[in-house]
């Protein structure tokens, strides 16, 4: 089909398609902001057109599959390789990323609560946290492999280290957030440190904790996948991507990437949903202005 049409006809066809695409997206974008159909529909339509052009270009211009397979080919590889990819998903996402995320965030949170009463330790640890954020922590992967072996444990260890500091910093910031007046109120009730922590300071800290959780979910996925680039047994999304890329088996590589991308967005979306239920009272969740700010990144 690709070489059957002559070049001027192809170019004209593409130009026409482009005009239609642009006009349709512009029309939808001009729809009122409060209209959900317009708000959700515009990026989706845009994405759909990108897929259409991608597919059409691959077929029309006969681009070598090595570079960029067509969406249809990726879908096919996804279907064919579903068994293998499911195993990879379990290894990377369920084991390395999720377990590492839970462990790292718990550790960060507990440490934050423990040093809440010691400004000295806070002043000691916070610069260390700032340092850790500028350092490529994924580099510890080979060391973790040496200590914990090739399996998912070493990758989870990398994730723990990567997620510890953001959670620590945000926990401390959140615990400091409760107002003087509210703390005086608890004091006037004779409430002790732990009672005040549970009834007041932790609820106030929740928006910060969820902020860290969302950041950490992305870091966990990255950490788990990249740690596998350093060496992994026979399963895992990162392993699949790097080995199949070396074999130029692009369909499967892109299929693995799609799985990773979907997993990452689903995890983030799930955390966002929980956040909205748990911090329903916070202005960033309950007002539309705040919600937009929240979504576009604090």
């Amino acid at each position, binding site marked *: 089909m690709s070489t059957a049409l002559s070049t001027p006809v192809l170019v004209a066809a593409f130009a026409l398609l482009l005009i239609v695409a642009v006009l349709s997206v512009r029309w939808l974008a001009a729809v009122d902001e409060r209209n959900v159909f317009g708000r959700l529909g515009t990026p989706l339509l845009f994405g759909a057109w990108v897929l259409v052009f991608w597919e059409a270009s691959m077929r029309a211009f006969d681009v070598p599959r090595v570079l960029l397979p067509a969406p249809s080919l990726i879908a096919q590889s996804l279907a064919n390789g579903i068994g293998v990819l499911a195993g990879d998903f379990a290894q990377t996402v369920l084991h390395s990323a999720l377990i590492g995320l839970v462990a790292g965030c718990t550790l960060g949170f507990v440490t934050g609560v423990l040093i809440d009463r010691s400004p000295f330790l806070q002043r000691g640890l916070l610069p260390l946290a700032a340092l850790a954020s500028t350092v490529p922590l994924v580099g510890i992967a080979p060391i973790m492999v040496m200590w914990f072996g090739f399996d998912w444990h070493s990758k989870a260890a990398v994730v723990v280290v990567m997620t510890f500091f953001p959670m620590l910093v945000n926990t401390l910031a959140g615990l400091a957030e409760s107002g003087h007046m*509210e703390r005086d109120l608890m004091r*006037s009730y004779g409430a002790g440190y732990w009672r005040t922590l549970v009834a007041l300071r932790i609820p106030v800290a929740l928006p910060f904790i969820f902020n860290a959780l969302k950041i950490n979910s992305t870091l966990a996925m990255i950490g788990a996948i990249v740690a596998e680039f350093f060496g992994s047994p026979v399963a895992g999304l990162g392993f699949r991507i790097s080995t199949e890329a070396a074999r130029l088996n692009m369909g499967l590589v892109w299929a693995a990437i799609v799985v990773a991308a979907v997993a990452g967005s689903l995890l983030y979306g799930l955390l966002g949903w929980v956040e909205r239920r748990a911090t329903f009272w916070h202005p960033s969740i309950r007002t539309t202005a705040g919600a937009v700010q929240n979504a576009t990144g604090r």
Partner: protein
Amino acid sequence: MTLSAPAPLPSPALAVEVHGASVVYPAAEHPVTALRDVSLAISEGEFISLIGPSGCGKTTLLRVIADLEQLTAGSVRVNGLSAHDARLARAYGYVFQAPALFPWRTVLANVCLPLQIHGVDKARARTVALEQLAKVGLTGFEGKYPWQLSGGMQQRVSIARALGFEPKLLMMDEPFGALDEITRDRLNEQLLQLWRADAGRRTIVFVTHSIPEAVFLSSRIVVMSPRPGRIAEVIESTLPAERSLDIRDTAAFTELAHRVRMALQGGHGSHGGH
């Protein structure tokens, strides 16, 4: 309980006794004397207003009585106990300048908060909370969240919360300062009704910036002056116990307000620097 009778009354129980209280904050250059040698005796059933310009120590005095600040010198006794013991014995309710409600709790849950902290069981706490909400006229709003209420309603919830233990002593730190005048008037009236409803058993100590508010509400007005914080003058109210908002247009009211204003200016002018 009328205060217009000039004849000496048998001394009633003292709700609050302050003797020679001083509060000094250490600072690099000049220590700040928030309170210097303040003495005050408040009888049970009085409505005392503390009024004065910024820095006169009225809020500090209130917080000292509530055990939210420490004295540098002197003593405070609340119902015969030290301030610390009184706080732990839940002898008073405290209302702040802002409602300080927890946004993740419903109105009912907010009023239940102090009861919950002291281990009152859920059912009883709920009953008490509903009673207090009824007293401030907020029946029907139990399930709402604080941000769904207006500023005045939020402050009323905060008062209902302070009443939870039926404390004999209620301390209020400029509770209506952030509200508009119309709401303020209504809340002033409601507060007086609340006070009178307990027939002389409830003592209220009220900090304010507003002369009309102090004159309207109080049985006794304590005028304070700054630098260092101290009591300038104590004025007994000449107004009858039964008051409505109309009393603000009477001559007696104007005269009393004038006396308070003079006392404020006098205190202000006489401090003459360090």
